[in-house]
């Protein structure tokens, strides 16, 4: 009998933001994680040493067993862009040149030798994908589609900011692209900064602010962009400085039109809310034009979307509602960390020619917490707890505290992949009363009061509560990637999770991939009549989502969470 050979590929993305590693075994993702979950530094962009170690240990292999290691982009081409941009915009580009050269000469230019020395692999095993190919591949090769259009939009990769293509079987071909400095992602980020938030961090906040305003300034924003009928666009350079300035994103001329930056971003100020509504609307119009153009060039009802821009869940819903595409897939980690998966899968399928058999319909690839270890930890630290007898007991006790208005930290088995907590590292609360939102915000999350919380609902009853139309089975609904209307009759029953415009970003929880969480929501529904829970990520403001039971316990102590559930163990906060 011949030996069965297994192909292991390790994908790595790092040095921009959100570094990550992913281990792929014969085209199947077996482990992946963002580095921030281990390092506890939010958006950690450093070399993902700990995430790599986690992936290898989880599979019980060492770096010697890897067939290939793939970096998610071509560093020299990116360097060329920075150098040429510095050259073109000199002398305005001094800060870009100085800071970038230091970063590149000390770190980024040596990616190859860095990976080789860290992993002790021969150089032939190290490969490089392209940034947008990695994005596109992360979506298509994880999707359920045999054939699909692919669209990737972000701030910028090497040179590309927007690209589309066609994928079929194990092949993925990007056809056209839009290049830096024309960038939909950077346009949105410019307004994120203007509204008082941080680029690459505050885009969610801008999206959350938009429903409080009216899109009064669409004309003014449209004047900054040339958009063609085919959806392609060019930004007018005189309004933006991100091309040459590391510290600013827009120019004096931009300020002459829109005024000064918001200095009170925690509050809803009418003007900035109107600006947020306007940029969101302009952005949606541009995205839909691009998607319509791609549809006209393809013959498939399926589209795979990727890149940081695919995290705009308000716009994602419109792709289904307003374009001719019938099916949408977005890999749960659509941003740069997802590039680690895409890079590995692109090499495995497109470059090496292997067939596909994989679909990512769940997100639980991260650190696991063992009940015995949890117990040992609690005993050692002399923390009093109640150990549930079985799942039913655990669920009954948790439902009881939730329905009495308590906030629960819920940590079960493997951590989620991607930016969303989907019922394994979540803070849960009763979604029925709007005051619960204020409690979670002020006691626990300490974040802007205007930002909405998302609901988790059991899949079989989702369309009672949300107007999902024919899209109930779309996988992005499982990953909280679509903002949808809450059914009018149910809005008063979902006060804590219905946004000011009557929408919500639900997670549809199915029995098969998420049995314990499904059962919890189901039982909560039996007790209260609402099979929905408020679900927000288990972290404090400015921190990454908790990874281990120790992280969870620390966060529990620092915050106003009432009850912590670690596996089978229930810990109540002592009243001091």
């Amino acid at each position: 009998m011949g030996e069965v050979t297994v192909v292991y590929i390790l994908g790595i993305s790092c040095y921009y933001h959100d570094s990550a590693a992913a281990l792929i075994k014969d085209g199947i993702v077996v482990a992946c994680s963002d580095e921030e979950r281990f390092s506890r530094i939010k958006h950690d962009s450093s070399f993902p040493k700990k995430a790599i170690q986690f992936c290898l240990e989880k599979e019980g292999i060492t770096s010697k067993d890897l067939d290939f290691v793939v970096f998610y982009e071509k560093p020299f081409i990116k360097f060329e862009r920075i150098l040429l941009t510095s050259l073109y915009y000199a002398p305005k580009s001094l800060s870009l040149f100085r800071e970038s050269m230091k970063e590149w000469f000390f770190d980024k230019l040596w990616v190859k030798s860095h990976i080789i020395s860290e992993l002790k692999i021969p150089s032939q095993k190290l490969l490089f994908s392209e940034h947008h190919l990695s994005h596109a591949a992360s979506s298509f090769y994880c999707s359920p589609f045999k054939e699909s259009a692919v669209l990737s939009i972000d701030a910028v990769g090497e040179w590309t900011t927007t690209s589309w293509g066609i994928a079929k079987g194990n092949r993925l071909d990007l056809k056209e692209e839009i290049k830096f400095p024309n960038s939909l992602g950077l346009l949105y980020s410019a307004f994120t900064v203007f509204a008082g938030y941080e680029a690459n961090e505050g885009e969610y906040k801008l999206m959350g602010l938009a429903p409080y305003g009216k899109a009064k300034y669409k004309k003014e924003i449209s004047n900054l962009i040339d958009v063609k009928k085919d959806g392609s666009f060019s930004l007018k350079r005189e309004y933006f400085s991100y091309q040459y300035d590391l510290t600013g994103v827009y120019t004096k001329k931009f300020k002459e039109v829109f005024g000064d930056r918001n200095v009170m971003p925690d509050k809803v100020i009418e003007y900035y809310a109107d600006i947020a509504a306007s940029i969101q609307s302009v952005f949606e119009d541009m995205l839909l034009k691009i998607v319509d153009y791609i549809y006209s060039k393809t013959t498939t009802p399926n589209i795979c979307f990727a890149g940081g821009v695919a995290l705009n869940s308000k716009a994602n819903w419109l792709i289904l509602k307003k374009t001719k595409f019938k099916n949408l897939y977005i890999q749960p980690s659509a941003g740069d960390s997802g590039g680690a998966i895409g890079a590995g899968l692109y090499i495995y399928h497109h470059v090496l020619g292997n067939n596909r058999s994989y679909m990512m319909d769940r997100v639980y690839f991260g650190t696991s917490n063992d009940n015995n270890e949890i117990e040992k930890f609690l005993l050692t630290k002399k923390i009093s707890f109640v150990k549930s007898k079985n799942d039913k007991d655990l669920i009954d006790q948790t439902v009881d505290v939730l329905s009495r208005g308590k906030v629960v930290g819920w940590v079960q088995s493997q951590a989620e992949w991607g930016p969303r907590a989907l019922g394994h590292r979540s803070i849960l609360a009763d979604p029925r009363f709007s005051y619960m939102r204020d409690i979670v915000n002020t006691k626990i999350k300490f974040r802007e009061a205007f930002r909405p919380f998302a609901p988790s609902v059991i899949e079989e009853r989702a369309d009672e509560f949300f107007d999902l139309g024919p899209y109930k089975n779309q996988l992005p609904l499982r990953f909280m990637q679509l903002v949808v209307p809450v059914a009018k009759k149910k809005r008063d029953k979902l006060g804590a999770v219905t946004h000011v415009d009557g929408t919500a970003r639900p997670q549809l929880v199915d029995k098969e991939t998420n049995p314990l969480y499904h059962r919890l929501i189901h039982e909560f529904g039996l007790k209260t009549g609402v099979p929905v829970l408020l679900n927000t990520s288990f972290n404090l403001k400015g921190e990454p989502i908790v990874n281990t039971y120790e992280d969870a316990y620390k966060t529990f102590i620092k915050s106003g969470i009432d009850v912590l559930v670690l596996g089978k163990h229930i810990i109540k906060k002592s009243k001091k």
Partner: protein
Amino acid sequence: MKTYRQWKKIAKKIAGFQADVILFLIFFIVLCPLSLLFRKLSKNNSFKEQNVRIYWVKRKKTVHDITWARLQ
């Protein structure tokens, strides 16, 4: 050990300052004049495209095999 760590900290600061000075000089002595020259003479597309309105660009058809994947 403590002295070594302190010295390392100071050395890092000195190196950072030196790098700043060198990069500053390179920028004004080399980059700025080159920039002027390039803007006048450049045939490099990526360079020219910085200030021209470009829209969809067709991607070059290249074979993506292991040789391509080894390129950085």
